[in-house]
């Protein structure tokens, strides 16, 4: 009984998650699909091929991936020391730290974007990739810090003490022990950072000021145009890199699965 409940719950969950994807595919590869037809009548790949042969599409994807990678690396570098303090140490004001950490998730991207835009215009970062990357770090950091600090909370420093007593230098300990022990959480944190940056629309638009074009921006302007096939095609392209990143993540996690289980 319990098992059946669990299975059907999961089935419903998967359906909710996959249904929109199928809808996109249907729109992307069909010409005319009107109410009340339950399924598309004519299938075609013309819109799809036109969209992926458009140089704007490909360059926007490349730029988006490049930005997402930079954001992932930078936010991990910032998050690691902060997460270590949050996860391992007891200190007064720890609650306040958490509160402040989540501020960026509640300030709407719009508000952050406009505030930053004013600031970046003054210091010459507006319209640059550097500016967009810095802006993306703001919504990214809370999630990376949160993920890593919950891993640090379960991390046992005695592993580091062992390595120290065996003669490893602090830098060797960091590379050969700490990073290795944290790998599963680092992978998940990278995933979060990549996904948040990749799907960022408003911050890119506001800080990029029309000079930095990523796929979400193309998608939005296509949405104003209103051709469902183009929108659906761009949406499918939009989903491709994240799916690959998630697939990679899932593989890494399953490789590390045994290690995690041994560790905790």
């Amino acid at each position, binding site marked *: 009984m319990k098992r059946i409940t669990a299975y059907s719950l999961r089935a419903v969950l998967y359906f909710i998650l996959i249904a929109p994807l199928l809808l996109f595919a249907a729109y992307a590869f069909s010409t005319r699909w009107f109410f009340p037809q339950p399924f598309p009548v004519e299938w075609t790949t013309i819109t799809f091929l036109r969209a992926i042969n458009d140089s704007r599409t490909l360059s926007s994807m490349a730029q988006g991936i490049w930005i997402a990678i930079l954001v992932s690396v930078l936010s991990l570098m910032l998050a690691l020391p902060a997460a270590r303090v949050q996860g391992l140490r007891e200190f007064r004001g720890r609650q306040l730290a958490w509160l402040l950490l989540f501020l960026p998730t509640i300030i709407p991207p719009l508000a952050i974007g406009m505030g930053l835009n004013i600031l970046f215009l003054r210091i010459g970062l507006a319209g640059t990739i550097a500016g967009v990357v810095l802006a993306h770090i703001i919504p990214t950091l809370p999630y990376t810090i949160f993920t890593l600090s919950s891993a640090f909370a379960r991390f046992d420093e005695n592993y580091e003490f*062992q390595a*120290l007593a*065996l003669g*490893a230098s602090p830098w060797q300990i960091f590379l050969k022990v700490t990073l290795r022990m944290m790998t599963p959480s680092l992978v998940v944190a990278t995933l979060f950072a990549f996904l948040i940056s990749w799907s960022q629309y408003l911050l890119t638009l506001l800080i990029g000021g029309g000079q930095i074009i990523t796929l979400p921006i193309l998608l939005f302007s296509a949405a104003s145009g209103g051709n469902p096939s183009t929108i659906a095609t761009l949406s499918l392209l939009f989903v491709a890199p994240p799916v690959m990143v998630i697939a990679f993540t899932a593989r890494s996690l399953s490789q590390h699965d*045994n290690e995690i289980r*041994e560790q905790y």
Partner: protein
Amino acid sequence: MTTVNIISLNKTYPNQPVPVLKDFSLSINDGEMIALLGPSGSGKSTLLKLITGIERPDSGDIQFDGSSILSIDPNKRGAVLMFQQSYLFPFLNVEDNIGFGLKVQGASAETIRGEVKRMLNLIGLPGIERRKSGQLSGGEQQRVALARALVTNPKLLLLDEPLSSLDTSVRMNLQEAIRNIQRELGVTTIFVTHDLGEAMAMSDRMALLLNGEIVALDKPENLFHRPRSLTAAKFMGVSTFLSGDQLTVKNEACSSSEKIFAIRPEHIRIQKEACKNSMLGVVSDCVFRGEYIEYQVDVNDVTVRARMPMPAPMFPHGEQVRVNFPQEHLFEVN
């Protein structure tokens, strides 16, 4: 290989009123195994942290072969640790775990492979190079952790309750294994434990710790049979004390002027007949423990615990008996 001198160490943690170590001094001979026995909070683990350099003492000195190590980086001191948990790196196999210390110190792959092989033979687990720590039993993990610690040829081996998470039989085996390996390699060792039997079975000398101070330091046999002080006697499992002149039983010394005699529970005799040095009591409990029976007898409101080896006379709960303290087993404590 190394003599260790610990000289007048003091350590107080911030936000704690009481010092963890008070003017703590201890000299350890080359190749000796010293057991530190004490309850939690007695400062045992802090001492290990000061020696490895994870913590710094407030004052005092620690010397290896006569020269201070306090100014040496923790990773250059040559003092290796083994904890209650093995802390084998879960992402490395046995070979890479044991070779870790050699690798970070820049040894060649060949040297490492050879040394790992030698250590695996020493700990009696040859051929398990490729296994992961999750595939080892608790006892095997601790053996590998010992190999990992010893492969770097350390000056001092620190064992922090390495056996307390293991089952009794595995524990006994590992006690023998560690003792034999330690003697074979002749490595100076500090063994921290709260288990009296383990401390006695493993060590050349035992130090009894209480509140950051050594209350007794001697060979296990001497401490066990003739502890000099009341505190040391209690540590060693003595629970019956008598004030000498009137031969009255007591659990605590009340006045400092009178002489106090102690007796080990296995030397107290429970019997029906009165004799010299015997007192009247009532049996309040009687537990069969295999090789002996443990009696609890109430004598003048004080509970005397006696261990009678089998075969022992059986006295039921509530029976009036004589508790006999043989003259030859009474010893004075202060």
